[in-house]
Each structure stands twice: as structure tokens, then as C-alpha cells.
């Protein structure tokens, strides 16, 4: 049914129809000279521009204005969503790439300013939030030489130690320590787990889940109250498409908001409004050192989506923003807000602000059950199947309660391999499944208690 015309420019066709889009920016390379008014930064109109935002010709900034523009987006996201408040201790997940380097830099600058205010203030009523950095060493899943990874870790230590005062604790944690609570050497177990997943995309997604679990573990064991990820607009745009392609349309809105409180330690995304291109530019402008750890290109679905979005972005630089904006119109979940602040140390203005602008949970029963593997909220239609098997503490519960995407790409196809697979999953996933389920069920049970006959009752 697709229009086959190569020359068509009509409004019914994808190329030309821009009902909801921003006007396509002119992305021709800047010509020296041009209009005289174009030789000035569009923001301050004083300095010479040195770089472009994604708006191309329409957004030429000088270095300061460019940086302030980006930092402004970061700051607004933090304030508007009450991401970081004085008593918090935030753990910044650092991968070495540009996005996490920028978020680390911005968090540091925010902390530095807060520290200055604190020092200057006789009152000392508002403590400065603490910042830690976590780097997850995934070298056991790849074939890097130990020299390569050691050098990388050294570089990271240097970066973090230079971001002081205030000083920040650095955690360098190998991915296999997700299993350390099981009291065993994780390397073998990790290999076993990853080998058991035959689908390439499934493997990559499982690794991402393990990463998040490990960050939760580090944060929780060290008293951190927030996890900050450098996830940028571009990354979110890719996630929107790949989640759609994996049949995760229902849970998609949960993953792309500013705040995700599904976890014990809420995860926040302050760079959500910043495109990767601008973050890259900032790193080169400001000389922010990044640590290139080639974890291997993504293959399978994730790699395909990444190339697809890249092609789209080249054709229209505002495409990523449009994708994220569209997905932003999907209804978020009740956990997509920071938990209410009851701390009296937090200025009441911030608390009022948070109350007003973050989502109210809908009053009805929160019957969201979650996939034990990827934690995506499951559509209510899945509920009855797990209801039937509740109370039966055997493993089949876990499988039935997994989302269709994990069932397809992560869980083994062969039922005889299932037992073995479950035995190599990290304990956290299995525990979470049981507790998560029970949490919902106990609430439900209360509601229907009066209709349930206990086993011992005699029928009259």
C-alpha cells in the first residue's frame, strides 16, 4: 500500500508531511561569511560562534552560550523533577562515554556551586548532596587484554580525582559481582548465564539488566539515594524504536521518563533533553576526557535500530527529538516520579513544586506486576495467569510471569533447560519476582478476603 513514487513530495507521504514536526532545519555546511548577522552567537549576539546545535544554521553558539544552554537543560530537568535534593547521596553511573562524562561534569558543577553556597552561608541549614561514581567493569564478557582495562580504570580514577573538591568516592566493580551475594566466584556463573541465552539481542538486553541490578546493589550497600544515568535523547530515541520492535509498547513509557522509581534506589535521567551530538560537541569544546571502552558494536535488533536512527538523524537532525517527544506523549506509570519527600530538611518550596508537577498515582489499586527479568510493567491481562499459580512457590511462576519479550529472547526455548537456567540467574531477579508478586497479591487478597473460604472450613 506504500506510495511508490520516488519524486513524490506530497503531504500524505512521510517525507513531506510535517503536521506535527518542527520545521526541518537547513543543515547545509556553514559557509564562511554568509550574512553578517549570522556571524554572531545566536544567544548572546556578542561572541563569535564556534559550534552548532542540532538546529544547524539556526543554532550557532559561542562556547559559553553552548555550554550554558546544555547545562540549563540539565539543571531544569533536575529542578523540575526534584531529582536531587540536599540530603541525597547520588551515585553517577560512569561508562566512560561522552554522555556519562557530561552528566558527571554537570553533577559535579552543581555540587561545587552548592558547596560554595554552603561555605558562604552562616546558616548551614542546607547540607550539600553527596556524589559518588560507579564504573562497571564488563571485561569478563569481552576479550580485552587486562592491560587495556587497567589503563582505562586508571584514566577513570584520574578523572574522578580531578573532580574535587568536593571529593567523590569511586566504585570500580566487575559485572560478575552481581553474584557475590550468592557467595561464589561470579565469572563462571556469568559465562554460564550468558551462554544459556542463544538470542544475540536477548544477551545484550540481559547484560543491561544485570548492569542496573549491580548499580542498585552498589547504591544500596553504600547508602546512596539516587542513581544518575547519562542517558541522552539519542539513546532514548533508539530505545523507543527497539522497544516497539520487541513488542514492549505497553511498558515503553516507563523507561523513558526523567525518573524511574520502580527500583529500591530511584534512577534519574537528567540529560534526557540533550542530543548526543551536542554532548559530543561539548566534550570536544571543553576538553572533557572520555574513556573509550569498545564494548563491541551492538548487533542484532539493537544494532539495527541504532543504524536506522542514525540514518534518520542524518536526513533530519531533529528526528530524534520528534521520536522522544512522540513517546513522551504516552502515559507514564505511577512510579515515574520521585517518591514523596517527607524530609523537613528539604525546602518546602521544593516539596510543593514536586507535589504539583510530578504525577499523582491513580487512586486505584496499583496492580502493576513486573517481569522478573526486565522489570517491565505487565499489562493487566497477564494478571489472571499468575493469579492461578500464586501460592505455588515453584519456579514455573517465574516463567509465566515474565513478559513476552523476555520469554522469547532470554528464557530458553527448551523446557528441559529451564531449571538449569533459573539456577544461574542472579538471586536478586528471582527474589524480586517473588516479593514483587506477593506485594501485589497481598493487596488484592485484602480486597477479596471476605469471599475466600479457608481450606479448613466446612461447607454448609
Amino acid at each position, binding site marked *: *500500500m*506504500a*506510495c*511508490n*513514487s*520516488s*519524486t*513524490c*513530495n*506530497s*503531504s*500524505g*507521504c*512521510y*517525507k*513531506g*508531511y*510535517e*503536521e*506535527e*514536526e518542527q*520545521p*526541518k532545519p*537547513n*543543515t*547545509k555546511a556553514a559557509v564562511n561569511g554568509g550574512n553578517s548577522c549570522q556571524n554572531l552567537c545566536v544567544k548572546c549576539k556578542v561572541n563569535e560562534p564556534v559550534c552548532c546545535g542540532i538546529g544547524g544554521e539556526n543554532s550557532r553558539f559561542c562556547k559559553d552560550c553552548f555550554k550554558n544552554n546544555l547545562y540549563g537543560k540539565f539543571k531544569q530537568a533536575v529542578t523540575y523533577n526534584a531529582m536531587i535534593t540536599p540530603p541525597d547521596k547520588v551515585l553517577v553511573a560512569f561508562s566512560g562515554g561522552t554522555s556519562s562524562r557530561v552528566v558527571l561534569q554537570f553533577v559535579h558543577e552543581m555540587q561545587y556551586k552548592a558547596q560554595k553556597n554552603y561555605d558562604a552561608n552562616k546558616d548551614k541549614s542546607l547540607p550539600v548532596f553527596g556524589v559518588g561514581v560507579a564504573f562497571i567493569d564488563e571485561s569478563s564478557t569481552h576479550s580485552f587484554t587486562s592491560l587495556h582495562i587497567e589503563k582505562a580504570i586508571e584514566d577513570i580514577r584520574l578523572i574522578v580525582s580531578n573532580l574535587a573538591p568536593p571529593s567523590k568516592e569511586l566504585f570500580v566493580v566487575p559485572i560478575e559481582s552481581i553474584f557475590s551475594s550468592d557467595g561464589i566466584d561470579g565469572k563462571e556463573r556469568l559465562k554460564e548465564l550468558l551462554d544459556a541465552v*542463544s*538470542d*544475540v*539481542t536477548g544477551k545484550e538486553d540481559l547484560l543491561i539488566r544485570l548492569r542496573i541490578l549491580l548499580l542498585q546493589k552498589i547504591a544500596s550497600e553504600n547508602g546512596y539515594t539516587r542513581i544518575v544515568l547519562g542517558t541522552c535523547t539519542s539513546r532514548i530515541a533508539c530505545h*523507543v524504536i527497539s*522497544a*516497539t*520492535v*520487541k*513488542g514492549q*509498547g*505497553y511498558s*515503553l*513509557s516507563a523507561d523513558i521518563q526523567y525518573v524511574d522509581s520502580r527500583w529500591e534506589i530511584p534512577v534519574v535521567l537528567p540529560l534526557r533533553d540533550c542530543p548526543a551530538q551536542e554532548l559530543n560537541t561539548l566534550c570536544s569544546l571543553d576538553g572533557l576526557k572520555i574513556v573509550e571502552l569498545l564494548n563491541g558494536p551492538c548487533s*542484532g*535488533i539493537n544494532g*539495527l535500530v541504532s543504524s*536506522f536512527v542514525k*540514518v*534518520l538523524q542524518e*536526513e533530519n537532525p531533529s*528526528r530524534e527529538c*520528534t*521520536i522522544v*517527544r*512522540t*513517546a513522551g*506523549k*504516552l*502515559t507514564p506509570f505511577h512510579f515515574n516520579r520521585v517518591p514523596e519527600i517527607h524530609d523537613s530538611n528539604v525546602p518546602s518550596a521544593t516539596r510543593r513544586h514536586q507535589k504539583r508537577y510530578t504525577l499523582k498515582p491513580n487512586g486505584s489499586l496499583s496492580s502493576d506486576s513486573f517481569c522478573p527479568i526486565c522489570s517491565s510493567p505487565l499489562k493487566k491481562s497477564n494478571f489472571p495467569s499468575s493469579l492461578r499459580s500464586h501460592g505455588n512457590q515453584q519456579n514455573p511462576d517465574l516463567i509465566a510471569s515474565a513478559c*513476552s*519479550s523476555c520469554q*522469547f529472547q532470554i528464557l530458553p*526455548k527448551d523446557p528441559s533447560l529451564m531449571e538449569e537456567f533459573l539456577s544461574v540467574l542472579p538471586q536478586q531477579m528471582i527474589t524480586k519476582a517473588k516479593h514483587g508478586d506477593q506485594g501485589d497479591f497481598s493487596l488484592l487478597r485484602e480486597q477479596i478476603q471476605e469471599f475466600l473460604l479457608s481450606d479448613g472450613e466446612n461447607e454448609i
Partner: protein
Amino acid sequence: MEADSKPKKSGARLCCVCTQNRAALKRPKTLEQICRECFYAVFEEEIHQVILENQLFKPGERIAIGASGGKDSTVLAYVLSELNRRHNYGLDLFLLSVDEGITGYRDDSLETVKRNELQYGLPLKIVSYKDLYGWTMDEIVKMIGLKNNCTFCGVFRRQALDRGAALLKVDKVATGHNADDIAETVLLNILRGDIARLSRCTSIITGEDGPIPRCKPFKYTYEKEIKLDYFSTECIYSPNAYRGFAREFIKDLERIRPRAILDIIKSGEDFRISTTTKMPEQGTCERCGYISSQKWCKACVLLEGLNRGLPKLGIGRTQGLNSDGKKDRKRDSRTPSIESKQCGSLEF
């Protein structure tokens, strides 16, 4: 499970369904090895289930099958007439074809549709652009050139189908949109930022509040599986077979993971879109009475342009009748469209 890239071993493989016949094909949707008879059987059975589960038809209804002469509508005609007979749907089926007046292209497709009429015993009605609007596509292209011709054709065709259906006094129109089409539409609506269309585009029945409801029995049917007696000619005004970004992406996806097409449709159905999302208000066109959210329906705006010698009327963002000059300037200042990139029409 990702598709095996290793070549399959030669040697007799039995059909996985009947285990009697030798497997002649690999089913695109599931990669199962299957014999021809079983393939046809399972193909038709799945569509039958879709029809039942979604209650697409009621006994006694008059149904027009949008017949373009392409493979999708040819197969649709065959399958619907077959299932109607086999399962006693009790439907009154017709073929409804639109003659855009494109010499060479439409002549051939109309031949196919006429053949379908004979083959499947379905009465055929042809509505032509000439009769309805006073213009053939040939004449329109002569007037406006090769840009924007798809806009005209798409808008006119949609109305033509409705008008033809009204003339035939049918209860529903069935179109051959397949899973690939719908998956592509979901992606394109995400890319374009059209949340309103995104919430509607996976519906298997649309336009229930309009003149004639339409349904898509092939919603879950893979394009690859739609193979039968079909005639495939590319429209002559589109010499390139190059497909748009989204379609190409879907083809690549299908190669890695065939079920991704259905997963996209599932995502589209599951998107949490607020029901308060603003939908355009449905009114009627002042000029012709057709359903329209503006004063004049799109077809009337376009026709006005043609008749007044202002071919750009109704093309582009603003639709005012008096802002031609502004529109042209706006149009030209945009970056020139990239050649040989095909677009996906979303006006269904």
C-alpha cells in the same frame, strides 16, 4: 531466536504439520518447514480466526473488497470468497475497483480485477476519477507535474472507495492492508510525531463513525505470505522500486527476527495513549457533503486548485485557500527532497 544464517541442509524434510508431504516452503512468519497444501490451509485458517476473534463481519452484510489488482487485494478477494463459502459467513461480496485513469498501469490492473471477477464469481464495480472528479491522473500529472501527484491520488482514491461503496450500498469495505503495512505505519507515526494517528492505526476496524467502516482482515498477515495469482506492476509514475526508510528497516528486521513485524503491531496496540488526546472534530464538507474536519474536504480543496489552475492549493502545511504565495515560498525554502527515497503514504 534469530534466523539461522547457515544454509539449510538439502535432503527430504517433511512438512511439520501433516508430516506426510515433503516440505516445499519455509513459512516466513514462523520459519516452519511446510508443504504447499498445509501452507494454504494454515494461511487461510489464521485469517478465518482473525475474522472471528475480531468480529469483522455479520451474516447478511454487503462487503466491498477494495480491489486494486495488486497482490494483496487479489489474495483478499480469493480468501474472503473461499472462507465465505467454506464457513458460511453469509456475506454478499463485491469487488470494488478504482480507475485512476493512468494509462498502462491501471489498464493492466483492471484486467487482473476483471479476471478476479470471473475466477471468484464476485461482481465487479469500477469507479473512475473521471466520473467522480472530472479528472484522470494522467490529466492531473500533465497539469501539476510529478511532485505531489501522490497526494491527489491518495485523497481521491480514499473518497472514490467510499463513494463507490455508497453507490453499491455496502455495509463495510475490506482492504488488503497487511502486517508489514501496519507495522510501517506504526513506525512512521512515531517518527512523524503523530500521536493521534498512532492511537488509531492498529485498529482492525476504522471509520465506524464515518460513511462506511473499513476493516483489514490481513492485519496479522505477513506480506511475504500473501502469494497467489497476482499481478505486480509498479506504478509508472514511480520508476524506482526503492523503498522508504521504514519499509527497508522492517525488511531488515524481518530477516533477523520474523516475529518483529507482529511485535510492532502488538506494541502499537498496547501503547498507553490517553483517551483525551485531541482528535480532529468530524464535520462535513460544505461543497460535497463528504466527511471532513475542515470547511472543505481535502478532495474539494485539491479539485479547486486543479480547476483554478493553482496546483499547489492544498499541498503543504497550511491549507488556506488564500495563502498560495506564502506556501510556495515556504515550500521552496525547505531543503530539497532527497531523490530516490520513497515515501509511505499514510492516508488510509
